[in-house]
């Protein structure tokens, strides 16, 4: 919340940097990691435009979900169902396209998100079941439902326009996935930083009692956040369906962890009250860059896993060095 205001006060750029340095860890980490791969892998095509666009494409769904997850964590909640909901939405969308064309597909995908979100939200805000449990349960329910209605099979998307809009195509040289990611990111950033809703989300996550005492309908804010998360997950599922021209229950499987990791890496607190959408997207891109770079390096899968863990720790630790006194 502070960056846009820096200019209004008399502060040197250096002072500003020092004050906000800790929040900017992820950017430094990202640059370090990127430069590292750019140097070591320049002969392996890492810097080719196509590879860079690949990274964007591969990261888009995680990034899209991470935007909504930023709101969720900022509000002090969590959503473990996003990956499974994406899978379910890919299936419902693909089935609906087969049945009634693209509009039906879009409607089905979005309705999937709304339905799941309302159930998650109702259970969490009315029945007061912790979101960790509701969304964990929903993870199983969504996956099971997706397997069940698809008979565990892949549902092909034969329509040609759908993939062009949702995830498959390009506009000029730019993949539509990148545009989706940017659009969702910008909206998320503005919502969190600039709107009354965003302020309330942060307040609810920062101190729910104080938020309630301030006249905020904390239940409704949480409900909205949960619904937004589910709808965004459904959108990610629709993008998966477009990108792979398939709906399948396994799409998005395990994404919840990558999404939360991206958000936390980006500087959002797991405990609420603090969130940055830009950081989350950079966090997602950083994971994408690491995954891409390690494969290009020719490491074995086991070595990739080790290196990825090591790099994440290193990037955070390096950028954190010297800020420890504040701990």
């Amino acid at each position, binding site marked *: 919340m502070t960056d846009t*205001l820096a200019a209004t006060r008399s502060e040197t750029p250096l002072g500003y940097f020092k004050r906000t340095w800790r929040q900017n860890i992820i950017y430094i980490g990202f640059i370090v990691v990127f430069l590292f791969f750019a140097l070591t892998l320049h002969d392996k095509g890492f810097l080719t435009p196509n590879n860079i666009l690949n990274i964007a494409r591969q990261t888009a769904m995680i990034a899209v979900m991470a935007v909504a997850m930023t709101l969720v964590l900022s509000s002090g909640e969590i959503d473990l169902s996003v990956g499974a909901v994406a899978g379910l939405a890919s299936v419902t969308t693909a089935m609906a396209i087969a049945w009634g064309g693209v509009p039906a597909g879009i409607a089905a995908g979005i309705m999937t998100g709304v339905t799941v979100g309302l159930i998650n939200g109702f259970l969490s805000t009315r029945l007061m079941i912790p979101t960790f449990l509701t969304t964990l349960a929903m993870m199983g329910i969504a996956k099971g439902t997706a397997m069940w209605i698809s008979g565990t099979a892949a549902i092909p998307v034969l329509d040609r326009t759908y993939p062009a809009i949702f995830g498959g195509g390009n506009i000029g040289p730019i993949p539509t996935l990148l545009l989706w990611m940017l659009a969702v990111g910008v909206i998320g950033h503005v919502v969190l930083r600039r709107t*009354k809703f965003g302020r309330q989300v942060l307040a609810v996550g920062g101190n729910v009692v*104080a938020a*309630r005492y301030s006249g905020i*309908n904390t239940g409704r804010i949480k409900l909205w956040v949960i619904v937004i998360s589910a709808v965004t997950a459904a959108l990610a599922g629709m993008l998966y369906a477009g990108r792979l021209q398939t709906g399948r229950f396994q799409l998005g499987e395990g994404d919840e962890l990558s999404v939360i990791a991206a958000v936390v890496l980006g500087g959002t607190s797991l405990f609420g009250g603090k969130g940055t959408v830009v950081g989350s997207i950079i966090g997602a891109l950083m994971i994408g860059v690491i995954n891409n770079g390690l494969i290009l390096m020719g490491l074995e899968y086991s070595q990739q896993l080790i290196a990825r863990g090591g790099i994440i720790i290193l990037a955070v630790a390096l950028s954190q060095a010297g800020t420890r006194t504040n701990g």
Partner: protein
Amino acid sequence: MGGYSVTDKAVKPIAVEMDAISKRFGGVHALREVSLSVRRGEIHALLGENGAGKSTILKILRGVQAPDSGGIVVGGEAFTRLSPQLARQKGIGMIFQEMSLVPTLNVAQNVFLASEPLTPAGLIDDRAMERRSAEIFASMGVTVDPAAIVADLSTGQQQLTEIAKALSQNADVLVLDEPTSALTAGEVDILFDLLRRLKTEGKAIVYVSHRMDEIFRIADHATVLRDGRLIDSRPIGEYTLATLITDIMGKETRDLSEFATDSTAQDEIILKVEHLSSKLRRGGDVSFSLRRGEVLGIAGLLGAGRSRLARMLFGLEPIAHGTITLRGETIAIGSARQATELGLALVPEDRRRQGLVLNHSIQDNIELPILKRLGATPFVDRAKSRATTDELIKRLAIKTSSREAAANSLSGGNQQKIVIGKWLATDPDILIMDEPTAGIDIGSKGEVLRLVRALAAEGKSIIFISSELAELAAVSDRIAVMSDGRLVETIDKTELLTGDASQLRAEQRLQLIVQRGGNND
């Protein structure tokens, strides 16, 4: 260093000496070469306006913060800094201003945290802990359930728990940073008896309070800080109320006794409450009416149900029975949001839990209840929000480096001012204030009270809950006394002041009524 006279020195040995302590937080100089020496068998008052650096130097003494420079001598040993463990070993105990209790543990577990009694098998003896906690509370003459979870306690009870915790450590040097801000006169008396006893046992006591009467009742010596600098340090006998206030404020200030007493109450009854009782604690019964332009004070012992009443009126606690009539209409208030829309505001008693999002900025905290007014679009009009914040910072003299500073980087009193400010910004018709001046320095307290009267003069109505009877007597038009969830009596200010019109007499009469739980003779 310090201003001790030669005779003093001969009598009492020094327990702790802090020498030329400096401490900065970013650009803020919290302390500049401040020295402090505390003697055994002496109650040493540490005074200063909000943000003067009192809590900071005491936290350094307790080892929870490190000084940038300077030295500390405890028990003859010199240190450049202490750790919490080390300070504890050296016999330093402290009651923190922003209570340092673990909300999820119960009272006894907090009292004995990190010094739990053990069974012969080496396991924690919870029974013994509860028993001994009960004994400590009994010796303090108060009742707090040792098995109650701390999060469920009222602010006052938490403060008592904090005191019991410090006492249980049997410290040689006992530091009390505003221990009475949530206590009523009765508990204060009990605490003072305890402190006097400890003093005769040779303990050194450092005492911080913004209640000047307490200082003159209990302190032997006073040290005054202003803007992080040591201003003076001398035996209390060398001060008068006026000189002490001048030292603290750096200028002369009027005190409460000069307060205007003319009522601004109009005829219109804006709020009427009949037989109200809470669902969470049965047996209450509150009836009163509030006029436009009136300040209704509410007095009572700890746990009398004053805060509950405030919460019920503000839609935060379910109502079992009774009716609320607002501007002639009977209403049901289901949430704070609804209450806000009806023109009510509540300055809650627990600033850290109920009042602030601590790691958000001042501006973010202040704009929270007024989001609706910050522009007609879904977007926050930040320019307007900035202007409002800046105006409140100025109006309440909040001491801060910027409106962007996180609330928890401010001193306790300044945090309290944010809470007042954020509710003033809503421009309510009815302002409920629950212990609004807790932790606020004497200069600002006068400002707050004047503000309350000014609002009343504008036609606003105020319900003013306070444990400090002097300010209640000063600011209120009428004072309601609560006991055990019931409103037992309402006294007109003119009635209190009958006979001789002294503020002090009025306060004493009020205290008698409160202690008895109503004027039932």
